[in-house]
């Protein structure tokens, strides 16, 4: 059964733009090559880390949404660990609860940066959701 996943990678912000772009491209390429379908790529950009990781104090955040049956995740995370420019990563299942909360953020909160790609997805979800509130 295919599920919607979201993977976040934190690339060392001290690296050159070209290196960062290459790593992001490599990861998206890897996801597609493992037989998953990339839905959206949300590039947040550089942010100060809340605490230093190794020697890095700035991180470059990228959120990638993709659809997979779950078999590719093990290999994907192994590749993350091998890649030295990726300092942190997180892969989560985007379940109904999380999407509902995200829709609420879009509705009541100020929209996050470059969230235009996400807004169309949120609208689809309105039809599914019962008017519980």
């Amino acid at each position, binding site marked *: 059964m295919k599920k919607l996943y979201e993977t976040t990678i934190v690339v060392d912000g001290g690296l050159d733009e070209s290196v960062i772009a290459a790593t992001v491209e490599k990861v998206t390429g890897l996801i597609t090559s493992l037989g998953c379908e990339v839905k959206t790529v949300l590039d947040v950009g550089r942010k100060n*880390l809340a605490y230093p990781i190794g020697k890095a104090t700035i991180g470059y955040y990228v959120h990638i949404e993709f659809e997979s049956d779950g078999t590719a995740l093990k290999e994907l995370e192994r590749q993350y660990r091998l890649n030295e420019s990726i300092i*942190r990563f997180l892969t989560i299942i985007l379940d109904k609860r999380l999407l509902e909360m995200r829709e609420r953020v879009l509705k009541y909160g100020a929209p996050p940066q470059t969230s235009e790609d996400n807004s169309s997805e949120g609208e689809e979800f309105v039809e599914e959701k019962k008017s519980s509130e």
Partner: protein
Amino acid sequence: MSFSKLKPKTTVSRPVQRVAQNAKKKQVRNQVVFFDYRDDRKLRRFINEQGKIIPRRITGLSAKEQRLLTKSIKWARHLAIIPFVSNQIR
């Protein structure tokens, strides 16, 4: 004889109290809560100055929402979006 007279009194008085309590709870639930693990500004509302997660009795979230909140905060901490312990204390 006296017991039968007392019984209805107690049953009448209880529901009145319950209605008042429910009304109070509904007022609290009216505020809309939202957060996203990717957004530090929204998560910072739910942690104290030390970086600890604020308990449910103060945030007023439902159990379901609080569960998602703690998870979100822990994800965000892992990604260095919000601190485990604030800088002032460290």
